[in-house]
């Protein structure tokens, strides 16, 4: 009951901020940008010129699966940046402006507050990711050849696990500081830290969330989901739950 009220408030706010319009549009652009530029790269090089006489521009065209992964990595980098920029004010901004005290002056459970805010954020992020990847997949089919819809759907579902994880990091860091800039910086520090640790100890930590995008790439290349993926999904969900629980505990202890 209470949960859905906060969730609806979050939805309403995202609609008023027109986030529901601009974030999907931006992800759509991110999704199709790389397939298009890769496709036209030889032509762009030709028209820009500066090449010696008789030089032949011969850049091998990527296979469809490879080209689709360009869209994924675009959303994995620029997309995450946009997500973090939106999310840095999620709770920290409300604390700063006083909305937070206003909401919690009513008998609102911290659990409801944190999970509803996270869910609202996730819905926006996952919808935008879906639109971006769908657009990328469509362009890959037009430009580079056939790639099955199941490949798109599996990629989207697997990658969404990482989106959930990243948004949970942002919610978690939001409970530490009131300064949005700090939240942005630390969220990235945490996410990049996990990536670095994963790349160093990757052979031991085969279930680390940092592997998700490379497992998605493996899946696109081979057509089968790597067996470690299921363990990774398990760990990621456990980490998400831990981070959300910690956020609730931190907020509870903050006042009084």
């Amino acid at each position, binding site marked *: 009951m209470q949960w859905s009220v906060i969730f609806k408030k979050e939805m309403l706010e995202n609609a008023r901020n*027109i*986030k529901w319009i*601009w974030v999907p549009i931006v992800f*759509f652009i991110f999704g199709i940008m790389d397939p*298009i530029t890769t496709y036209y790269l030889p*032509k762009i090089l030709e*028209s820009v010129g500066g090449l010696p006489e008789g030089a032949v521009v011969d850049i091998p065209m990527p296979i469809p699966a490879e080209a689709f992964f360009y869209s994924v990595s675009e959303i994995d980098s620029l997309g995450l940046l*946009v997500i973090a920029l939106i999310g840095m004010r999620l709770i920290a901004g409300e604390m700063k402006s006083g909305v937070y005290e206003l909401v919690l002056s009513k008998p609102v459970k911290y659990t409801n507050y944190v999970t509803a805010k996270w869910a609202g954020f996730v819905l926006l992020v996952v919808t935008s990711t879906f639109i971006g990847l769908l657009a990328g997949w469509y362009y890959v089919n037009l430009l580079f050849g056939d790639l099955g819809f199941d490949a798109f759907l599996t990629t989207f579902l697997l990658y969404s696990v990482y989106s959930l994880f990243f948004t949970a990091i942002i919610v978690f860091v939001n409970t530490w500081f009131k300064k949005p800039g700090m939240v942005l910086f630390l969220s990235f520090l945490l996410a990049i830290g996990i990536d670095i640790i994963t790349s160093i100890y990757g052979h031991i930590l085969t279930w680390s969330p940092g592997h998700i995008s490379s497992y998605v790439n493996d899946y696109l290349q081979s057509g089968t989901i790597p067996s470690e993926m299921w363990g990774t999904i398990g760990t990621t969900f456990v980490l998400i739950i831990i981070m959300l629980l910690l956020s609730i505990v931190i907020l509870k202890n903050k006042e009084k």
Partner: protein
Amino acid sequence: MDLNWGLILPLLIIEAILIVVALIDLIRIDETKGPKWVWALIIIFLTVLGPISYFIFGRRQD
């Protein structure tokens, strides 16, 4: 240079929509961080990046 406009056009249209949405919002909003006309220039002349930075940094968050 032969471009397939069927491929490029959707991108241009969606970029235009983004700019128009940002401009409409800029006109309707009461206050922005910094002068409005600067944001208008940023939105129009910096493709994609302009509208995004307006939505993230330009709108007053309170």
